[in-house]
Structure formats: structure tokens, C-alpha cells
């Protein structure tokens, strides 16, 4: 449910960027994401897009490294833990709380040197990542639509 849509006036994009709209999309994104939106303004109009793009690149690289690391004969748990730590950090910084939470569980499994558990966790974190990626891409598209429409309210069918 996009409650912000009801309050969206002609200043649509400003509302989105400057008012720190609370974007809690089914719990996928937490308050940290709103903080990122607050940092976007006229002089840095692409800030959120840039951070999100970096998050996608960084996460995909890490998930790839994790897949390779867990596919080895001798699993190096320290290395895996280091990758997960990084992913936990970046997901936390962007507000991707479900990804972050899976990373916390993942690190515990690394501590226990539980290879099977780690594999399951990797699948889970990949799933969560894809879910939040979908949400973020939708959000960015929405922002673009608002800008393109000169601040008018966009069609919101896809979000209901």
C-alpha cells in the first residue's frame, strides 16, 4: 500500500526526495532507506540511484564469490565469513533489513563451520536479495516516472 500516494501533490518528486517518505515495503526496506532519500536533493539528484546501483553490483559480486567459495572441496569459513560480513554491512547501509538478517544467521553458521547450513543460507540470502532488488528497481522506476511526468501522480496499479 502506497500511503504516500494520497499525499502526493504537484511537488511529487520533492516529497519523495526531501520529505523522507517512510518506505517500508512489506518490511524489505527499513528506516535507513529513508535516510538515503533524505540525502538526495537538487544538487545530488541521483544519489539514491547511485547508491542502489553500487549495492546491486557489490552484492552480486559477493554472492558470486560466496557461491564459488562454498563450492570448494575445502570450505574456507573465514573467507566466507569475510564476504558475508561485507554483504551484511552494505545491506545494512542501504536499509535492506531482510538481507542483513539472513547475513547475521549466515555468520553464525560460519562460526559453527556448518557447510550445509551455509549452503542453505546462501540460497536464502540470494532469494532475499532478489526480492529487495525487485522492490528497489520498482521504486527507482516510480521516481523516474514522477520526474518524467513533471511531478504528477503516476499510475500505481503495480504496487497495490
Amino acid at each position, binding site marked *: 500500500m502506497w500511503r504516500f500516494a494520497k499525499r502526493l501533490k504537484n511537488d511529487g518528486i520533492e516529497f519523495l526526495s526531501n520529505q523522507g517518505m517512510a518506505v517500508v515495503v512489506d518490511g524489505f526496506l527499513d528506516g*535507513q532507506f529513508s*535516510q*538515503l532519500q*533524505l*540525502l538526495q536533493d537538487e544538487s*545530488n539528484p541521483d*544519489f539514491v540511484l*547511485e*547508491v542502489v546501483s*553500487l*549495492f546491486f553490483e*557489490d552484492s552480486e559480486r559477493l554472492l558470486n564469490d560466496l557461491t564459488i567459495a562454498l563450492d570448494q572441496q575445502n570450505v574456507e569459513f573465514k573467507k566466507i565469513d*569475510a564476504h558475508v*560480513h*561485507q554483504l*551484511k*554491512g*552494505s545491506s*545494512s*547501509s*542501504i*536499509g535492506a533489513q531482510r538481507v542483513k538478517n539472513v547475513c547475521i544467521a549466515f555468520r553464525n553458521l560460519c562460526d559453527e563451520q556448518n557447510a550445509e547450513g551455509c549452503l542453505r543460507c546462501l540460497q536464502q540470502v540470494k532469494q532475499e536479495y532478489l526480492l529487495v532488488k525487485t522492490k528497489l528497481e520498482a521504486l527507482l522506476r516510480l521516481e523516474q516516472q514522477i520526474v518524467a511526468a513533471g511531478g504528477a501522480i503516476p499510475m500505481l496499479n503495480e504496487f497495490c
Partner: protein
Amino acid sequence: MGGGVATETHQFHVLAVDDSIIDRKLIERLLKTSSYQVTAVDSGVKALEFLGLLDDVDVDNTDSNSHHHKVEVNLIITDYCMPAITGYDLLRKIKESKLFKDIPVVIMSSENVPSRINSCMEQGAEEFFLKPVQQSDVNKLRPHLMRGRKSQNHKRKPVEECLSPDRTRTRYNNHDLEL
């Protein structure tokens, strides 16, 4: 916000150190909203290199790094967990340096480990921020920067300070330090 700073001297320059590209982008943006000039590097080694402190060589002893003058940095903010040189190692090296020991250093960490926080504060860190770093955290930097500038510029009008002699992390209202 910082009107007293902009008029007489140039902007404060903050060196930010973080191996995460996302966190680097975030801290850079946060610092720039406070009108600080920012240099962001991705490792402790690069930070030391920037400061001219690589190989424990202070710039005023030799110019092997072709640094003929000390680089002007007013505050260093660094991540704790980094490969090779940790934020703690970096803090120590800065505090051991003749040229930079008085530069305020702030540590950031995603983990809330009391012993870690204590050892950083004991080593001379001014603040310890938990990640993700917020605007409210960055607002705490100004008193440390102002204090540094005050000790540099003796000719400036005295600035009223609420500084306690010990190293407790006193909370400042930014406006108290403005004339």
C-alpha cells in the same frame, strides 16, 4: 550552520577511510551536506599514503614521498574492520605521528563491541559511531573540528567552549560554539 568558519578560512577537510564502496559513498555524502571537503580512500594503507606516513616516515624528516609540505586534514573518520590495516591500527599510527597526533580521529563500526569501543577511545579516538552512520552522528564532528581550528588560529576571537578536560564524549549543541 558554520557561518563563522566559512568567512575567514577554507572549508574543513575530512579524510574518510572505508573499504566498502557503499559506505564510502554514504559517508562522503553525509560529510558534504555539512559542507566539509572530503577525501575518501578505500584502505588504511591509502590513508597513510595520503598523509605521507607510509613506512613510518614522517614528512618533515624526509621527502622520499615527494611531499614537501604536510597535507591539510582536519579530521579523520575511519571504518574499524578493514583488511590489512584496521581502523584501530590506523588510529594508533596517527597518534604516534608527530604531525598528525592532534588531528581528531573518529571510528565507525557495524559491530557494537564494548571492548572494541573502549580500546579505541583509550587510544585517543574522539568518537565511535555505529553503522549505518547517520546525519546526527556527523553533526557531532563539528565541535572537534572547531576545537582544532581554534588551537591553530590564536588571533581569532575566543570561542566559548564547553569542553571538559577529560575524554568523555560530551554532547555539544552546535550553536553554543558559534559567536
